[in-house]
């Protein structure tokens, strides 16, 4: 059924279809609408879940871990400082292999305080062992609500999943969204069954310590499971396409990259404008393309290098900076290029921090600078004097 929904509302609609049994969340702008809608759904009976009014984000995730350890599907959502407040729980959930799904509304981190969208919150926590996906539009957000549980709970994966939505630009923007029928959602997403939970017939001791003799084995297995998510993402998307008629493209999606000399690599909502500009430049005879990273973990090392191997230069545009180095997406991309032995110039463009607009002109300028060469790291809107 077609509905006119914001990104937050679309995600909440997707979560209802996924039938989580425990939802624990704490409000933070711009995530609030998700928890408000889920509360409405619990109130009107359309979502049969325990909604836990926790007193902090730390407790939101702690509660979700407890519920997951009890063996049920759980959901939480947060943003920015809230995600950072959860940081301890992120490594706990992934280390314990609890397939919790969390929506994160990508938002700037203090200081200075700012409620608008950038990606420093989730990228600062990229190494916490969660699958990280970045949605481009409300439809993809809704679909990821279903896909995320399928992938996270898959026996080969059993790893928590963070779905990221650009704050305001996606969370608060209304679009027409196709909301699947519950019967189809149930066909896609089976009831959650796990042995990673308490059992009164065969009691379990959980979330224990492991010394140096076995700790590294647990950590290796956690890493291996995250990599095993790659084929599971493909499997999930195929099944999803069969049932819902929408086919996603795995860890990345590419636009006119096959013959492109210059490829802009980015993530989230800005990919749409980037494609628009690419089309405009193509009309002027420039061979440019856009690569959108959909999953930052597991990282599309091979997919990216395969897509850009014939390019003359690549740009990475992200709403993030790892202070003292470059953008986190950029350093991940350049490591993929290095792994494939590709000696392609790569330039980092930092934009959109604290919600600053990235304009048509900015993206046109990125393509131009990429063609002619520029600094390794460039802050959009700040010209550094040499």
């Amino acid at each position, binding site marked *: 059924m077609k509905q006119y929904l914001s990104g937050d509302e679309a995600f909440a609609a997707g979560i209802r279809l996924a039938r989580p049994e425990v939802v624990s969340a704490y409000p933070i702008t711009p995530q609030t609408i998700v928890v408000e809608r889920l509360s409405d759904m619990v109130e009107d009976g359309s979502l049969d879940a325990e909604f836990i009014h926790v007193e902090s984000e730390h407790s939101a995730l702690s509660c979700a871990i*407890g*519920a997951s350890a*009890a*063996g049920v599907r759980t959901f939480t959502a947060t943003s920015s400082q809230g995600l950072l407040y959860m940081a301890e729980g992120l490594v706990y959930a992934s280390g314990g292999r609890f397939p919790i799904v969390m929506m994160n509304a990508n938002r700037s981190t203090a200081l200075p305080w700012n409620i608008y969208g950038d990606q420093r919150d989730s990228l600062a926590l990229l190494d916490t062992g969660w699958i990280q996906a970045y949605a481009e539009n409300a439809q993809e957000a809704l679909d990821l609500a279903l896909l995320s549980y399928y992938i996270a709970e898959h026996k080969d994966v059993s790893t928590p999943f963070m779905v990221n939505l650009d704050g305001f630009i996606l969370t608060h923007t209304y679009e027409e969204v196709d909301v699947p029928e519950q019967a189809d959602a149930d066909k896609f997403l089976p009831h959650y069954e796990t042995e990673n939970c308490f059992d009164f017939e065969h009691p379990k*001791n959980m*979330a224990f310590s492991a010394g140096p003799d076995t700790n590294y084995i647990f950590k290796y297995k956690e890493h291996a499971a995250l990599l095993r998510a790659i084929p599971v993402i493909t499997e999930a998307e195929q099944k999803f396409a069969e049932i819902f008629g929408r086919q996603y493209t795995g860890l990345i999606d590419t636009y006119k990259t096959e013959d492109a000399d210059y490829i802009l690599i980015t993530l989230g909502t800005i990919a749409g404008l980037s494609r628009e500009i690419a089309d405009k430049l193509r009309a002027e005879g420039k061979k440019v393309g856009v690569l959108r990273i959909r999953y930052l973990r597991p990282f599309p090392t091979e997919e990216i290098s395969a897509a850009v191997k014939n390019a003359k230069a690549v740009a990475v545009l992200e709403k993030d900076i790892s202070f003292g180095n470059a953008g986190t997406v950029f350093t991940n991309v350049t490591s993929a290029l290095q792994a494939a032995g590709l000696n392609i110039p790569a330039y980092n463009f930092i934009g959109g921090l604290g919600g600053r607009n990235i304009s048509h002109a900015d993206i046109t300028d990125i393509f131009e600078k990429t063609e002619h060469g520029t600094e390794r790291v460039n802050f959009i809107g700040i010209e550094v004097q040499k």
Partner: protein
Amino acid sequence: MSVTAKTLDTNEYFYGHKACAGCGGSLAVRAALKVLGEKSVAVLPAGCMSAVGFNFPQLCFSNNAIISMFAGTASMLTGVEAGLRRRGITDFQAVGFAGDGGTADIGIQALSGAIDRGDNILYICYDNEAYMNTGIQKSGLTPFGAKTTTTPAGANIHGNIRPKKNLFEIVAAHDIPYAATATVGYLPDFLNKVEKAKSIKGTKFIHVIAPCPTGWGIPVSDTVEAAREIVDCGLWYLAEYENGAFTLNRDPKEFTSVEDYLKRQARFKHLTDDDIRVIIESRDKKWEKIRSNWKTKE
């Protein structure tokens, strides 16, 4: 029916752990689980009891048990309770065992949240009066005058300068269905409080004194004696909060010597007569309030 040593479940649910010899915390956990039995799910935050009981592959709980984040005992209990209930399981007790720091300091927010929500959980604080697992640092429940590694006793400062946080009454102020204080020195009292808590729906809280021989500076054989003496000398009290009212379970006609209690413990050895006078005065003030405001049993 009251619980006694003779009627207690003979199964052991916390066994083979690596707690120090004479550990009061492990006695509290062991004893409570013998009341709660195999249908309990224990949640223990990072701290002594999780450190000594969950070292894979040495796993010392025979019931379902899990380590929570340090600040997350109560919030994880909430999730565990909600999750198991969703699975259609009803005859279980989610029980938390957190230390004094894990409860009165870092975990108090989550505990307050759980009580506020009225979650059907039992939270037991085993109080050894300092962060013992990390090597005896001051917590919010460290008593006045105690020497810890972060409240050293020197010529200028005589150990901890602040009194013990009034945790029992802070918890009671939430209008919690049931709260109690206890000590591992008088186990039948503690066990019957656990039994009573088990039968009450909603959030329950028990604050049990559990001496740490290492941190208190007493012989390992003296844990139970010290845990009795703290009540007998009036520095701790056995009480309950139920239906909006406080009840004092034990009203000693005469206190034993506070000085004897303190001087037996290395953490108080440095205290001057003036320090001890302050402690006695504060004890007497507390008891004056208790006796004039709380009901007394018998």
